[in-house]
């Protein structure tokens, strides 16, 4: 695109196509003709038929759009960004979080905080972890930046409560240890793309 074209702000004249809709009816007779034409064309009855057919399908083919929400729930997109989940390692049951603090750093509403310490097994232990859900804007950066896919956005979108703090305990976000087998691998924001292998260069190993 040349600069001149680029600077032409009169977008309408460039890309709009005018439909040929003819002239509006002039005078009473023309209008009457239009009415008669439209009346006998049966378009109105097509409309009636469409909604009637819909009703039949809804009633007899059980093709109903309604989701009875609190009783039924739609599966949500993996890219949906709801209350965070902290995942565990499937093998050991340990939480995946390594305490790198990247989520804390990238958080644009500055609502993540963590304390870490050097534990008895010479590992970095996350001693405290909170998300202030009063401030969280669910942008998903934390999940995207997490190198371990430890913090992800879970499916819990019902977050009306008197105290949002209740969502933010590390233990509440963590997969319950007895439900470890139900833990879903996250494939939303920040997850490894399906073709990740094609995009990386393999590191040689000497083992």
């Amino acid at each position, binding site marked *: 695109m040349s600069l001149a074209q680029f600077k032409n702000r009169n977008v309408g004249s460039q890309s709009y196509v005018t439909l040929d809709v003819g002239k509006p009816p002039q005078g009473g007779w023309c209008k009457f003709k239009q009415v008669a034409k439209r009346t006998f064309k049966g378009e109105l009855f097509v409309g009636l038929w469409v909604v009637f057919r819909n009703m039949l399908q809804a009633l007899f083919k059980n093709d109903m*759009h309604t989701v009875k929400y609190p009783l039924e729930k739609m599966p949500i997109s993996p890219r949906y960004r709801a209350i965070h989940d902290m995942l565990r390692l499937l093998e050991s049951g340990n939480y995946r979080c390594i305490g790198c603090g990247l989520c804390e750093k990238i958080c644009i509403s500055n609502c993540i905080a963590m304390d870490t310490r050097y534990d008895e097994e010479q590992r970095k232990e996350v001693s405290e972890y909170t998300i202030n859900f009063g401030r969280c804007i669910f942008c998903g950066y934390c999940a995207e930046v997490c190198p371990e896919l430890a913090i992800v956005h879970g499916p819990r979108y019902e977050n009306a409560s008197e105290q949002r703090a209740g969502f933010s305990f590390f233990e509440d976000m963590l997969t319950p240890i007895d439900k470890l087998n139900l833990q879903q691998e996250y494939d939303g924001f920040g997850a490894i793309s399906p073709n990740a292998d094609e995009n990386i260069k393999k590191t040689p190993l000497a083992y």
Partner: protein
Amino acid sequence: MEATHLLPEVTWVGVLIKTVIILAIISALAGFGTFIERKVLAFMQRRLGPMHVGPYGLLQIAADGIKLFTKEDIIPQNANKLIFMVAPLITAATAFIALGAVPVFPDFTVPDFIPFIGGTFVPSIASDLNIGILFVLGMMASGLYGPLLAGMSQANKWGIIGAARTAIQFLSYEVITALAILAPVMLVGSLSFVDFNMYQSGGVSSWLIWQQPVAFILFLIAGFAETNRTPFDLLEHEAEVVSGYATEYSGMRWGMFFIGEYANMITISVIAAIVFLGGYDASSSIGWLTIMLKIAFFFFLMLWVRAAWPHVRPDQLMWFCWKVLMPIAVLNVLITAIIVLL
């Protein structure tokens, strides 16, 4: 006229019972109508509609009723209070009065085992006036005062616009209704609904719709307009005038407009069923059922149309009335008259 003489005498107790039945059932039906409307519209949009109050949401009417009754009755400070308060009553009252001259249910005799009123004959029409149709149309026309006064009394712009629209719409389409129904009246030669019913008692082929299809369509269109139904629901069109004449109303006063409207829908359905579709077959044991079905069909048609069609503009509405429908109606009357004369 002979047939009526075969029936037992109508006592004032019977009329009273009928009145109570009409009031109770029709107002209940009006409420039920709202439920049906919501359900039908929902189905046509592949939704479920009300589901949670009672089985399939049947008790939604009760819930709505409780809500309407218990809501605060707000009267705006600058409204003309008396008129504001009376206006909904006019709508409801006229609708029910109109029903007084319409045969709604078949006549029956109260079983003897019921004390006091046992053996009382209850007629199908509370009052079989010989000018029934005229009375009904007149009553419905006077129902226009309800919205008109409501809109003008509430000191609200939208109310005023709603009221103005009410006045022109109802007045205009009253003409069409009258002209449309004039042709069948000329054929039958009576204004009594019972006579209409008798006139068509010869089976489906004797229905007036075959002789007067144009009048039927005109009547139907005008009926939609008079009951303020889509595509002519301009009086209280939300997108344009908030809620029109009902803008400032709340609680039961607001509810009464709707009871009136739904009663009117029933009335129109009844008239259409009797005048054009043969009414109830007095000779058949299931005559009452046939008219029920006919009424139900017209009622359903109103909902169906609402689900399918968009509404028209006020200018289109008036143009349609005076420049299209009225000439046709007049022509229809003329042609009918000529045929009757010949």
